């Protein structure tokens, strides 16, 4: 009788622990790119060119992955909703690589400097968009 009670208490504990872990997993915030090993390292101009030439193929290669992109800072946007974007030069007058940072964790950037940024690639929409970025 006593051993049956112990087994029931253990089973209840395992169930409770499993539910807690499942809830914790569900509540997890989207991951930041900081500290992640990039799946690819590429120049901003090459990245844009790949998307412009074949958006579907480049999307398969880069979307949802952490990639490191090197380029010269073209512009730094105004903070908006806790986010700030940095545009990396691509040699194209219009399109850039747009890197979105959390304002609170935004590194210091200066226009004209060459940097390597890593972030999650969301695709190509005039700019190639990287999110949840960090300096590589």
């Amino acid at each position, binding site marked *: 009788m006593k051993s049956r009670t112990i087994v029931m208490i253990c089973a209840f504990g395992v169930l409770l622990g499993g539910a807690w872990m499942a809830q914790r997993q569900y509540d997890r915030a989207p991951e930041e790119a900081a500290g992640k090993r990039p799946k690819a390292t590429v120049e901003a101009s090459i990245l844009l060119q790949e998307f412009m030439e074949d*958006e579907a193929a480049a999307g398969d290669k880069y979307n949802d992955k952490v990639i490191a992109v090197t380029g010269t800072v073209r512009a730094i946007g105004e903070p908006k909703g806790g986010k700030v974007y940095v545009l990396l030069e691509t040699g194209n007058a219009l399109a850039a690589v747009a890197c979105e940072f959390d304002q609170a964790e935004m590194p210091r950037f200066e226009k004209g400097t060459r940097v390597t940024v890593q972030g999650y690639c969301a695709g190509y929409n005039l*700019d190639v968009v990287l999110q949840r970025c960090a300096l590589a």
Partner: protein
Amino acid sequence: MFSTRCTTALLVLMVLPVLSYGQDRYFTRTGELSFGCDTKMGDVQAVNRMATSMFDTSTASLEVSMLVKAFEFEKAAMQHQFNNELMESDLFPKATFTGRVLGLADGIFSKPDTLILLVAGDLTIHGKARKVVERSQWVVGADGTVHAYCRFKVLLSDYDIRVPTLLKDVLSNEVEVLLALDYEKL
């Protein structure tokens, strides 16, 4: 896929001429689109702050384009479900609007003002385009900036967005969307 490429190409074609002489065109690459819906598990909110948009006052044409994957949720699991089970964002990477602002009079954006105008055009979500007409608010600032706001409702069923069986009881078919575009004059 073809229509999203067309929209990107249209945006490029609209922007290119103004690099040299455009005076009536407004552009943003940080348009914000947020939505929320009530679920039995609580409110779900998401925001996309990287929408591109071009507005040409001389032709009243308005283009908005955004990456579905650029929507950010509070929880990674929600973002995953949204992209993979609802929006199928690998198949349909963009949501777009191509249309016109109705009732524009000459010089209407030349002085600070707040205007309520109708916007009509094709809203394409999940690869399906539908004609829409919505009310929008336009605020012209003293510094020449233009801010546009539009609140509208989207029915998931209108865009062939199939809610997975597991979520049918917890997710509403109606989603309220808020679009905010802070334009700069080109």
